[in-house]
């Protein structure tokens, strides 16, 4: 991955392997150690160590003064985090499933992202809202949505969605250190995935996409869960002689269009892989910028591989139909390459 290709790391000994899930807790713990104003709150995050085990070890290490179990009160969780962020703390608030952001959407849409602006810069809101996002696990319509596109509709929120364990740590560092509010989407389908552990002091700036596989024929833009899908498709297509460049956006805001536009300038063809439904999906924003600013570099239609415009069904056979798969992406890119 681009961010790991620094000389220091290239010569480092083989890195330990870890999970995406463990990296969440690791990323938070690193920041809690360096900054005593970082505190966590959420449902079942303390002694229970998180419903997804993404806060394992935190309660033990930092105790009840810094890790707070809350009632089932999403508005109070996020509203309190906001008030605390305005008054000297750096809260990291967990919303258990990203679908539940809808229960406190006022804070994400109307309060947190606007208060700095509407006070003429008088206050800052340095907080992180972490949440388990996405489908593929058979949790049904109300526990499976990929909703980073909801956050994209709101100016004033930074939006992060890592795809690998070390990106989780590196982006968590930037998110917690950011003086701006960040919504941090942890993908449920990636929790068990493994990868190199983050090196010490690993920090990835917000808003830097990674070209994780170079290629010449088609640019494939992906995010979070669709990154491994895109990589598998690229791998499969390589066998057919089609060279696919895969860009992991990592963040929706700041949105690294420079990297995307540069890639499309090289490949002249673009496909975007999104987990959210096509209607209102984040790929629309990316596609429209390329169809405008990159128009002259395009040699083929811009393709969006997004979820079908239906709620997520429970049965896994049905869910598989709805969410873009390696097969649908491979087919679409193959056609695009032949265009």
């Amino acid at each position: 991955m681009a961010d790991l290709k620094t000389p220091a790391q290239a010569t480092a000994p083989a890195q330990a392997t870890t999970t995406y899930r463990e990296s969440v807790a690791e990323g938070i713990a690193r920041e809690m150690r360096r900054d005593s104003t970082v505190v966590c709150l959420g449902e079942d995050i303390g002694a229970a160590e998180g419903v997804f085990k993404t806060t394992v070890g935190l309660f033990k290490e930092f105790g009840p003064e810094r890790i707070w179990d809350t009632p089932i009160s999403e508005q109070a969780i996020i509203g309190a985090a906001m008030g605390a962020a305005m008054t000297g703390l750096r809260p990291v608030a967990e919303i258990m499933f990203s679908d539940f952001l809808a229960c406190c959407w006022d804070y994400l849409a109307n309060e947190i992202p606007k208060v700095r602006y509407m006070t003429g810069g008088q206050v800052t809101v340095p907080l992180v809202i972490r949440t388990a996002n996405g489908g593929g696990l058979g949790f049904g319509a109300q526990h499976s949505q990929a909703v980073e596109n909801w956050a994209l509709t709101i100016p004033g929120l930074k939006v992060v969605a890592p795809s690998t364990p070390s990106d989780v740590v590196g982006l968590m560092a930037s998110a917690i250190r950011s003086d701006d509010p960040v919504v941090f989407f942890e993908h449920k389908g990636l929790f068990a995935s493994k990868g190199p552990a983050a090196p010490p002091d690993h920090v990835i700036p917000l808003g830097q996409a990674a070209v994780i596989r170079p290629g010449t024929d088609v640019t494939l833009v992906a995010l979070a869960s669709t990154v491994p899908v895109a990589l598998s498709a690229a791998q499969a297509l390589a066998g057919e002689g089609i060279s696919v460049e895969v860009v992991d956006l990592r963040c929706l805001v700041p949105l690294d269009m420079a990297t995307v536009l540069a890639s499309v300038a090289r490949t002249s063809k673009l496909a975007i892989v999104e987990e959210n439904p096509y209607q209102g999906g984040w790929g629309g924003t990316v596609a429209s910028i390329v169809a405008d600013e990159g128009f002259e570099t395009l040699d083929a239609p811009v393709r969006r591989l997004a979820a079908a415009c239906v709620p997520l069904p429970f049965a896994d056979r049905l869910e598989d139909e709805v969410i873009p798969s390696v097969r649908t992406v491979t087919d679409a890119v193959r056609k695009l390459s032949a265009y």
Partner: protein
Amino acid sequence: MATTTEVDLLDLYEQMSVIRGTEKAAQDLFLAGLVKGTTHLAAGHEAVAVGASAALRPDDYVFATYRGHHHAMARGAAPAACLAELMSRATGLCKAKGGSMHLTSAEHNMLGSYAIVGSHLPMAAGAAWSAKLRGSSQIAVAFFGDGATNIGAFHEALNLAAVWRLPVVFICENNLYMEYTPIGSVTAVEHPAADRAPAYQLPAEVIDGNDVLVVRDAVVRAAQRARDGEGPTIIEAMTYRHFGHSRTDPAKYRPADEVEQWLARDPLLVAKQRLAADGIAADRIAEVDARAAKTVADAVAAAKAAPEADPAEAFTDVWADGGAQWRT
């Protein structure tokens, strides 16, 4: 309706026994990999569902939570259709599109299981409003957990229902825990539902949720108030879940003696004791147990034999026309 008869209780016992068996089967099927996603089993809560349903008319409305298998079955959904839903079969109660958390049986006016905590309390108020406007003398019932009492929708629903004097009964299944956290540690009052009733000038009762007749009688009273135009009632039924919160949660956060005490008050045991006290012979109970076991075994067999859900179903039922088209 409220008088206890031998037949009544045996029948309620059988319903509870079928639910218990189905929940155990669901757990086994989950562990065997035949149920995907997650389940929130209601074993231990049977008396609430069965007792309440016994007090309702078939045309009354019921809204439940992700822990709602017992409500679906108590209202009349077939165990086979419930298990088929959990197992992603075409014959599932919701065509395998809902899953464990969303069991719904509209034909029984069981209008859904909702997985966003507290979200269905306003819906129940709305169904009651509809009944009132239509002059149907139907009532609506919302079942919810202790944890749901700290979410905003609870407050808004109770106030609206109180102000509009709606025919609705709010039944809290207080099983002492949210997921893994005791409700007492995050709630400002001892009885999270009942102690909030005065904030809406509503009557409330805290009852033994493991005694099916106690539940039935409380709901009979509340339903009568509702039908008489006297507005909502809050019932807080104390109960306990026998399994963990969901999936394979071993529920280690619960003290052993607490678990033991509550298992000794298993609603099936409580009912059996009542039956025995009423002079019902053990072999009649055994007969019922056997019949319940057979019902469950048949349901498991039927669900297993049912075809997998058809992938084409992913693209139906978004709109009332049956389709999913959002653009031309």
